């Protein structure tokens, strides 16, 4: 408990300070920022158009060189350019899908947790049932039924299969928070249920969601790559890390670089998101706060 201090600062400032002290997280954050920047500026940064096939005979499967640092693929396309354009798809799909899942998951969990009683019971049994089905199976089923897979539908499917855990997390937080004194105090001052939930309960429930979302992005990148590998994810001519790797794995003996570089990009990205997620979890831990 701090003594009254004249300096006014948001609780977030303490969190930021703690993240700033975590060197690994800072490096990870910088790498992600760089990747996002490169993805946004892809047309400027990439040395070639992603689908240009300059010389399908002479330039096919050429190893890394100065002109093509990541080499070229079977169709003589520049792998570096494809990885750069692929990052737009991989990062974009993952981010949007995770935004969708945390929105749905938070709303669902908040309603169940705040309603309590039989409504909560029913809503959570539905989640139990959905969680009993492996996500990959659910994805394959949905995508197979969908037929032609456009990017928006891929995002939709990835987003809508990823919110069950978040809803459980939020529901548990809301259940504890809804019976806290400040929620009761807000009701005693005449606040509507909606207002109590939205203003008083949810803002206090969001930190685990933030952690789950950060870790979730890394998870969805891998999932999307896996689906692309099966031909269910991002469809050609769009390049995503997943389908570049798939391309490359068919030719792994004759051109190891095709699969290696997008694989490395993915590895680094997912690792960074996990490091940031862990750092956030540590920084948001209230027990940590008491110690410092």
């Amino acid at each position, binding site marked *: 408990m701090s003594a009254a201090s004249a300096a006014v600062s948001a609780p977030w400032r303490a969190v930021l300070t703690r993240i700033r002290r975590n060197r690994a997280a800072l490096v990870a954050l910088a790498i992600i920022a760089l990747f996002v920047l490169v993805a946004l500026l892809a047309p400027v940064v990439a040395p070639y158009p992603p689908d240009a096939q300059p010389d399908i005979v002479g330039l096919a499967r050429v190893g890394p060189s100065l002109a093509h640092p990541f080499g070229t693929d079977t169709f003589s396309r520049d792998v570096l350019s494809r990885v750069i354009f692929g990052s737009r798809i991989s990062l974009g799909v993952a981010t949007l899908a995770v935004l969708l899942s945390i929105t749905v998951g938070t709303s669902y969990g908040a309603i169940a947790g705040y309603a309590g009683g039989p409504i909560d019971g029913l809503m959570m049994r539905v989640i139990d049932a959905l969680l009993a089905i492996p996500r990959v199976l659910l994805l394959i089923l949905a995508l197979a039924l969908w037929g032609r897979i456009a990017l928006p539908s891929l995002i939709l499917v990835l987003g809508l299969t990823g919110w069950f855990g978040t809803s459980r997390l939020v529901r548990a937080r809301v259940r504890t928070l809804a019976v806290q004194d*400040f929620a009761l105090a807000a009701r005693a001052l005449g606040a509507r249920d909606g207002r109590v939930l939205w*203003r008083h309960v949810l*803002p*206090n429930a969001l930190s685990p969601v933030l952690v789950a979302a950060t870790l979730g992005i890394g998870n969805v990148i891998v999932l999307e790559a896996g689906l692309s590998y099966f031909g269910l994810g991002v469809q050609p001519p769009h390049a995503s890390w997943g389908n570049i790797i798939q391309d490359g794995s068919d030719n792994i003996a004759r051109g190891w670089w095709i699969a290696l570089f997008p694989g490395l990009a993915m590895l680094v990205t997912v690792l960074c998101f996990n490091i940031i997620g862990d750092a956030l979890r540590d920084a948001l831990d209230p027990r940590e706060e008491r110690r410092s």
Partner: protein
Amino acid sequence: MSETQPLLQLRNLRTTFSTDAGDARAVDGVSLDVGEGETVGLVGESGCGKSVTALSILRLIQPPGRIESGSEIRLEGRDLMSLSEREMRDVRGNRIAMVWQEPLSALNPVFTVGDQIAEVARVHAGASRAAAKAKAIEMLRLVGIADPEERVDAYPHQLSGGMRQRVVIAMALVMSPSLLIADEPTTALDVTIQAQILELLRDVQQRMGMSVLLITHDLGVVAETTSRVIVMYAGEVVEEAPVRDIFAAAHHPYTEGLLRAMPRVGAIRERLTVIPGSVPPPTAWPTGCRFRDRCPYSWERCEREHPPLYQIGAGHVSRCHLAVEPERRARPHIPLAAVGTADAGALR
């Protein structure tokens, strides 16, 4: 009890919680009045139903709890039990406001105190953002917080315990309620701060002319601030009297016990005594008198017959058969609850 219409009237308030062990009758037929501009103390130990009474007045009892039909809650003559939830929201924070025991947990940790005070004005008066903030600063000044323009942007954890309780009081006073319910407002505070908060409550009560229902287990607090005292035990009112009479001529053995358990300056030779045993579980109130196992005077009538509220004097009632058999007071015995083996029932 008062001649004119009292501000708050409770008649036969019964609040029950369904539990696995059966229905817990936490508040079991409480009737009380709080007059216009009056400060009434509601006293009793933990588990006697004081706080549930307070939450019932605001109709904030959540399932598995319920206020039984037949309970009457009237504010300024208006029957609160018949109001819709929407109408009731307009009463909460507006006509009746509450001050809580633990200010840190009653405040939302992620918003500034100014935001939280302003919210009341926004909810009830539809105040604009700017007007609500101005109101928040004005309220902080009213409750005696220095530099309100700065403190308005402070988060609860940046304030001291006493200041937090001032903020909670400020939130309660925004709409100038006619009734302020203060549930153990000083229990969580240092002794020196306690006095300041009581002083503040007295001050705003006089300035705004509102009524206060002060819930406490501390008779010292009651002596300083209230004009009338209602003592609750096991979900019932057991004694009610003007504050002077409570200290000079308490009638109910439970009130007597509470007084004897209170340290007093100048009474050095008197041993501080405890009331043996504890409040029985609300799922199984004893038949007859609910205090009998802990009472040094109980006799077989107390087991057989649930005592009514006997009139003792002007504005003084007591739920004890001693009112009609006063000679029994001369023959105290060791309470059943103090005799080890007989304790089992009370402890369950």
